[in-house]
Every structure is written in structure tokens, then in C-alpha cells.
């Protein structure tokens, strides 16, 4: 019995020492409990108490996360379960930003506020999901990976099905849940194969040696099955089927959160996995991630942009466009370390533009009741501010110069070119060409909105534009998108 005693004492010391590295996560758990209590007991008296508690606690966690920069280089905690790096801190900040914007969006979303069962639970689920995302960004162990993906996924099923006001949202949540459950089951099976082949779950060097011992394609099979789960979160091509239907069906704030938050979490996890598999100075290249990402990126870009041409429902179009952007972002991943800065910048701009886009779309839906682009006739004049900022956001999504979308695409092109120079594989070249072609194609469906809103007239009387908080926030976001286009170094200096 005693052989464990000395072992226990030093692992307990490790645990206590580890706490220093996970202040943000602790903050999240505390706020999770606070929200639950406020939801249960105080909601009768102060209606929006959970909202304010969540907001304040997120702000606190934000400051805690910023302090984490001081940790310096990577720090493995809790016996290899999680590893804390500056990279994952950036991702955590992005998750928090996306969560804050989500809460504010929920606060101003008519559909959510009129929900009879109240939005308290949503905030609690959100915080749990946030914790899951943080773990995704930090996980260094396959069990940790599975647990964090499950937390984020289950939380998202709940959020998608939260209101289930009409058939569509229920259908969206069931599709999301089933597809997600199947993918995570496949991923779990992949992890079990990896475990059986290598004997360890920690994403480190000896896992690579284990995989090296067995024939290359059986290791490939195990990793491919594992990547299926990851692909579900990032929704690149073979795993993208769920996203158009779910994004269209889910309530707009949740869609905004899914396209930004959970997608960025997917990228964080892929970044962690890539770093782990390449960290051994690619002495042992077990699996050709470069080729996989290249092909998947090209197909995703083509699929996302080409399919979007047909969409009439604005949310469905934005869904396809976010698939297109995923493909484009994977180009940054191909350049591994060099591409990190452009990846973070692109994700940050993508976060701002997407949330702004969904807020504006929601505002148009709320005031004019039109969800399809073809019913946007003549709205350009009657809702000037909304549609000007929507136009700027769409221009940024296309990547035309004055906006930050262009600088983001430019940086990604730059990092891809850099990796082409070092590796010289023509696949990267084809990726860049596809990127350019799909940018031109994307112009077409993004410009259907101003085409209908401005260029086409309608006789019917159109609603006046109400100046409310949502419009203010989206104007601020649009202004940021423009300013970062002209002075991008404000952001890039922060990312080192």
C-alpha cells in the first residue's frame, strides 16, 4: 500500500502548484455556480440578474486570462493533462470575446427575450461550454480532448435546441446532436485504437514512437478516425453536412456563437494536435498532415463558396461562407509555426465580421421579417445605416482592400507563400490559386445582398429603421473592421 504514499504526496504538490496556471478555468467554474444560484433563487426579483452576473464574471475571467501571458513558454500541468502556452491564451481570449458578444446578442434578441422558460439556463450552459473550449485549447491528453469536445458539443446541442419555438429549431438540434454523437463515437473508437497501439494517451513523443512501431497505414487509420471528431467541430468538407441546416435552424445568436466560438475552438484543438505531432522536430513523421490539410482546404473552399451561390436564405448563405472561410484558414495552418500570427489575426477579424453580420441579419429579420435575400428589395433606402454596415461587413468577408478582411487574406496568402518557398510543394500553390478563385466567386454571392437592397426597387411600404443597442454594437464592430483594415498593426503588435 505504501508504495503509492510517496507518489501521492508529490502529485498533490503538483496539483497545488498547477492551480496557479488555471485561474481562468477556476473563475469560470465559480461564475458557473453563481449563475445557477442566481437563476434558481433571485431571478424572480431582478429579471436580468443572470445576464449581469455572467457579463461581470466573463470580464473578470478576461483579465485573469490576460495575466496568463506572464507564464512565458509552455507549461504542462496536471501530469500531462493540459499544457499552457501563449498560443492557447490567444485562443482563450478569442473564446471569451465570442462569448461576451453572444451574451450581448442574446440580451438584444427578441426571440430569446420572449422565451417563456427564461434565458438563465442558457448563460449557465454557455459558461460550461466556455470551460470546455478552454480545455480544448489546452488539452495535451487524448482523454482531455474527448472530454472537452463532448462538453462543447453537448452544450451546443442544448443551445441550438434551447428555444425549439418551432419545428425547425427542434430539427436543427436533433440533426446536430445525432451527427455530433456519431462523430464523437467514431473519434472515441479512433482514440481507443491509438491507445491500444501505443499504450499512452498523452500527446507527446512516446505516443509518436508507439505509432511508428506499427505499419504506417494502420496508424493512419487510427488518426484518420480520430480526426473525424475534430473535423466535426471545424466542419471542413467531409464533416460539414450538418452546418448549413443547423445554422439555418438555430436561433441567430446561437448560430453566431457556433460559427465563431466553436469553430475557433476546433482550430485551437487542431493547432494543439499539429504542434504535438510535429513537435518531435518531425524526426518521426507519422502522418502527412500537410497533404491532408492541403486537399481538405481546397475542397472546403470550393464547396463553401460554390454552394453559397445558390442560397436565398441569408443565414444559410452565411453558413456556407463560413465553411469557405474554414477552408481559407486551413491554408494558414499549412505553414504551421509561421502561419500562427496570420491565423489569429484572421480568426479575430472573422469573429468580428461574422458576429456583426449575424446581428445585422437578425435586426433586418426582426424589423422587416424578411429572411430571404430576394425579399430584401429596396430595404437599402429605408434602413440606410443597417445596410451600409452590412455592405462593409460583406466587403470585408469578400476581402476587398479598404477593409480588414483584405489584410487578413493578404497575411494568410503571405504565410502560404512563405511555406511554399520552404517546402516547394505545388499543392500549396494550388491552394493559393483556389483561394484567389474562390475570392472572386465569393464576391458574387456576397454582392447579391446589395444587389437586391440597393439596385432593385419595390413599391411596397418599407419599415423605418429603429435605432437600438444592437445597431450600435454592429456599427461599432463595423467601424473596428474598417479601422483594422487601415491600421492593422494595432492588432498584429499584440500577437507576437
Amino acid at each position, binding site marked *: 500500500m505504501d508504495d503509492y504514499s510517496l507518489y501521492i504526496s508529490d502529485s498533490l504538490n503538483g496539483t497545488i502548484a498547477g492551480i496557479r496556471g488555471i485561474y481562468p478555468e477556476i473563475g469560470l467554474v465559480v461564475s458557473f455556480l453563481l449563475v445557477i444560484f442566481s437563476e434558481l433563487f433571485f431571478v424572480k426579483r431582478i429579471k436580468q440578474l443572470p445576464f449581469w452576473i455572467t457579463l461581470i464574471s466573463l470580464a473578470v475571467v478576461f483579465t485573469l486570462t490576460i495575466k496568463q501571458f506572464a507564464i512565458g513558454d509552455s507549461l504542462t500541468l496536471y501530469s500531462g493533462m493540459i499544457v499552457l502556452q501563449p498560443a492557447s491564451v490567444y485562443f482563450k481570449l478569442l473564446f471569451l470575446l465570442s462569448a461576451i458578444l453572444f451574451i450581448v446578442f442574446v440580451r438584444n434578441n427578441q426571440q430569446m427575450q420572449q422565451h417563456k422558460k427564461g434565458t438563465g439556463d442558457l448563460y449557465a450552459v454557455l459558461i460550461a461550454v466556455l470551460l470546455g473550449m478552454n480545455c480544448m485549447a489546452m488539452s495535451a491528453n487524448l482523454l482531455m480532448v474527448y472530454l472537452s469536445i463532448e462538453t462543447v458539443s453537448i452544450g451546443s446541442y442544448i443551445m441550438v435546441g434551447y428555444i425549439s419555438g418551432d419545428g425547425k429549431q427542434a430539427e436543427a438540434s436533433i440533426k446536430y446532436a445525432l451527427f455530433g454523437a456519431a462523430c464523437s463515437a467514431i473519434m472515441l473508437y479512433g482514440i481507443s485504437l491509438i491507445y491500444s497501439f501505443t499504450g499512452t494517451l498523452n500527446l507527446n513523443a512516446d505516443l509518436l514512437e508507439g505509432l511508428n512501431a506499427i505499419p504506417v497505414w494502420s496508424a493512419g487509420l487510427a488518426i484518420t478516425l480520430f480526426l473525424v471528431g475534430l473535423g466535426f467541430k471545424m466542419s471542413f468538407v467531409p464533416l460539414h453536412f450538418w452546418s448549413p441546416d443547423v445554422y439555418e435552424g438555430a436561433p441567430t445568436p446561437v448560430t453566431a456563437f457556433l460559427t465563431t466560438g466553436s469553430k475557433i475552438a476546433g482550430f485551437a484543438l487542431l493547432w494543439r494536435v499539429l504542434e504535438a505531432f510535429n513537435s518531435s522536430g518531425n524526426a518521426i513523421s507519422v502522418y502527412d498532415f500537410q497533404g491532408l490539410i492541403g486537399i481538405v482546404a481546397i475542397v472546403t473552399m470550393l464547396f463553401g463558396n460554390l454552394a453559397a451561390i445558390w442560397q436565398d436564405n441569408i443565414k444559410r448563405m452565411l453558413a456556407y461562407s463560413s465553411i469557405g472561410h474554414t477552408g481559407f484558414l486551413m491554408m494558414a495552418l499549412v505553414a504551421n*509555426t*509561421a502561419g*500562427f*500570427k*496570420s491565423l489569429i489575426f484572421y480568426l479575430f477579424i472573422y469573429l468580428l465580421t461574422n458576429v456583426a453580420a449575424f446581428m445585422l441579419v437578425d435586426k433586418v429579420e426582426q424589423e422587416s421579417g424578411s429572411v430571404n435575400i430576394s425579399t430584401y428589395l429596396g430595404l437599402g*433606402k429605408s434602413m440606410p445605416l443597417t445596410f451600409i454596415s452590412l455592405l462593409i461587413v460583406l*466587403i470585408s468577408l469578400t476581402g*476587398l*482592400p*479598404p477593409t480588414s478582411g*483584405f489584410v487578413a487574406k*493578404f*497575411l494568410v*496568402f*503571405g*504565410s502560404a*507563400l*512563405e511555406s511554399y*518557398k520552404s517546402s516547394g510543394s*505545388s499543392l500549396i*500553390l494550388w491552394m*493559393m*490559386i483556389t483561394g*484567389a*478563385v474562390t*475570392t*472572386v466567386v465569393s*464576391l*458574387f454571392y456576397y*454582392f447579391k445582398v*446589395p*444587389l437586391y437592397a*440597393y*439596385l*432593385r426597387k419595390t413599391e411596397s411600404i418599407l419599415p423605418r429603421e429603429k435605432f437600438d443597442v444592437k445597431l450600435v454594437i454592429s456599427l461599432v464592430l463595423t467601424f473596428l473592421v474598417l479601422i483594422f483594415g487601415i*491600421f*492593422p*498593426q494595432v492588432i*498584429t*503588435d499584440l500577437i*507576437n
Partner: protein
Amino acid sequence: MNLLSILTFLPLIAGIIILVAPSGWQKQFKYITLAVTLVQIAISGYIYFHFDNSLRGVDLINSYQFKEQISWIRLDLGSMGKLQIDYFLGIDGLSVPFLLLTSIIMMVATISSWEIKTNLKGYFALFLLLDTAIIGVFCALDFFLFYIFYELMLLPLYFLIGMWGGVRREYAAIKFFLYTLAGSVFMLLIMVGLYFSVTDPETGNHTFNMVHMMNPANYSGDSIFGSLAQQTLLGIPARLLGFIILFIAFAIKVPIVPLHTWLPDAHVEAPTPVSIILAGILLKVGGYGILRICYGIFPDAAIHTSWWLGLIGVVSIVYGALNALAQKDLKRLIAYSSVSHMGFVLLGTASLTAEGAAGSVMQMISHGFLSAMLFFLVGIVYNRVHDREIANFRGLANIMPQYTAFVMIAFFASLGLPGFSAFIAEAFSLIGAFNSETVNGAIPRWMAIAGSVGILLSAAYFLWTLQRMFFGQTRLMGGEEWRTKLNDLTMREKLALAPLALLALILGVFPSLAFDKINGSVLELIHHVTGK
């Protein structure tokens, strides 16, 4: 404050004022815009006359004039070094005439905008944004800044054609946008490639500065576009591929024959002031881009491909003229004639001789004035009777004598009657093209001869139109009702047409006004490209 920056951003500020101003001031918008364009003429006139002809510019950075260089973006990209983008404006012989041309054409377009009745605030804001973008394109010496202004031009034009255009305006607007964007997106790739290949001699990190891109010393050894690395992309030598892609991007704007199908649609559907700007200045951006960027940055590739450029030029001249001969709609005829006249620009540039290049720049300037005048004239008839079919009019001279006088001046000037600038330009482009075989063997002699056929064909379609529409007994499709509507020129219209006609005449009689400015830079460009 640097003159060029004032010239560039004055319209933008005015545009913002118009956007912010209450829409009750509808009437004042056009006067504000007119005031802005007049100030622009004053500034560019001042710049034009204080321009030191001896300084050559092109690839010598310190001989650019009215320079303004402020560091704008300094991104630190980790292993990829620091991204250095400067706000770098400057002009030399190639770009100074275009500044004056742009301001004058903008003034004429403003005067012709009196006819616009709907949504004036949006119209004039977009108009001034377009003005800023065009001036910016001509002044920018930093490739990134050039690209931003180049793309910024597309947006206002898309909406100007899309919202105030004719019947099939959406189709024309989106076709125009897609054509240009397709070209420019691939230009972005080349720009990125160039960025990574060139290092700024002073600061040592990568740079977008076009002038640094011009001299091969700044290219680092293993870079993609490095001259000695001889890298190949998809099997084609990198520098040649870069030249071809940049050339295609600008050729769409010129436009050359296979890529020209957007021009007739855009012109036919655009409102008169927009098609004045489109024909007057935007076609020149293509020509200017080829001279400044394609020939400046890839001189070696320019020599290899000059035969093909000459061939495209000749094909454009003849094909455009033949098409113009077959047109029923007057505006479409003038659009095709623009394609033909811009073919001379390409022929002159491809000849790589001093006469040819100077002739092509002169052709761009003179075509700017003349095509603006032509489209304005078409606009006059269209606004009165909303019809442009040549067959529907006969004997207009009897009921609109002054209008006919201006039309005859415009037609004869454009078909190259001596005494007007187009003759000097076309004659010297052809002489340069013919001469190039002895000077540097760039293009064969038969191309000059084939090109001169274009002069004959342009005489044919202009005179045919003149005879069909203006002379003979007056017979109008709209009969009596049209006759009452077709009153002669108003004072405003004469005020717009007179300066253009006068300028074409003055440039024709005293070409030294333009040639003195262009000569230095043209010689430097020829020296830069051919080393002679």
C-alpha cells in the same frame, strides 16, 4: 501638406460632407462637387506647370516629384520579417498628364451630372469616392496603396452603373465588377510574391515600394521573382508568369480584344456622366498600369512578349473598328471605337521606341478628351429623346446646327484629322511601331502597316454615322414630337464641350505642351526596358 495628398483626399472629404449633410440640400450637392473638381483642376494645373521636365522618374526613386513618403503599416510577422507598407505618393512624366486629364474629365462629368434626378446624395458621394480612387491610382508608388485604390475604384462604379444605369444595368454592373476583380485577385498573388522577393535597401525588410521593385539589385537571391533564381511556377518561368498575370489584369481595363466584352455593355447601360468617366479615365488606368508596373517591374519579360503585345494591339485596332462599323446603337459604336483607339496605345507601347511610347501616352490623353466629348454628345441626344439608334435620326444638322458643329469637331478629331491631338498620337504610335524593327526589333513592320488600316476604318464608321444621322432631309423616327424636343445646345452643355474641343485642338497644334512632360520619363522607361 503635400499637394498630391490634398488632391487625392479632397474629394473624399467633400464626399463625407455630402453624406453627412441633410438631404434637404439636394440642390447644393452638384455645386459642391463642381467646386471640388475646379479646385482639383487648379491644383493639378499648378503641379503640371511646376513639373520639372528634366527629372525622369520611372526607376530612379529620387527623381520623382511632389513625393510624400510616410510609414503606414509596420507589421512584425515573426519568421516572415517585418511587413513594411508606406503611404508613398509621387509623380513622374508618365502620371502627371493623367492628373490634369482626370480633373478636367471629372469637371465635365460633374456638369453632365445635372441630368441625374434621383437619390443625389448617394450619387455624388460615390462620384467623389471614385474621384479619390482614380487620383490615388495615378499617384500611388507603393504597390499595396496602388492595389487599394485600384480595388476602391470598383465599388462606386458598380453602384453608379447599377443604380442609375439603363435597362440591363445589373447585368452590366456585375459583369464589369467580375471581369476586373478576376484580374485583380490574381494581381494580389503576384503582389504578395513580389513583396517577399524584394527587400528595401535602407530598412532591409520586405517592401511594396514599386520603385525598389524595378531595380533587380533589391531582389534577394532565392526569391520567387529573383532574376537569377530562374524559379518556375507551374512550368512557366516565374518572372514571365508574373508579367503575364499583371498584363492580363490591366489588359481587362484597357480593354484588349478577347477581354473587352464588358465595355460595350458597361457603356450602353451606364448613365452619361459615368460613361464619360469610364471612357475618359478608367481605360487609361489599364494603359498606365502596363507602362508603370508591367514594363517597370518585369522589363525582361516585356521584351520577350512585345511581339504578342503588338499583335494584340493590331487585332484590337482592326477588330474594334470592324465592330464599330456594324453597330446600330450610337453609344455602342463609340464604345467599340474606344476599343480600337486603345489598340494604338498597346501598339505604341509594344514598339519600345521613344516615338511609340510617347505616342501611346499622347493617345491616352487625347482619347480621354475626345471620348469624353463623344459620350457627352450622345448623352445630349439620349436625354432629349431617350433613343440612340442611328437609323432613327436623319438630317439633324438642319434642326440642331450647333450640336452638329460640335459633333463634326469630335468625329473628325477622333478619326485623326491633323490639327487635332489624335492625329499626332496615332501618327507617332505608328511611326514608332514601324521604326521599332530597326531600333530594337521589338515588333515587325507589318504590324504598323496593319495598324494604319485602323485609321481608314475609323474614318469609314465616323463619316458613315455623320452622313446617316446629320445630313440629308430631316426625317425623325419620333416625328414632330421629337422635333420639338430636339432643341439645340444649352449654355451648360456648350460650357462642358468647349474646353474639351479646345484642348484637343491645342494639343494638336502645340503637342509640345504634353510631349515635353512625357519625354524624359519615356526615354527613361525605354532605357530601363531595352537598355538602349
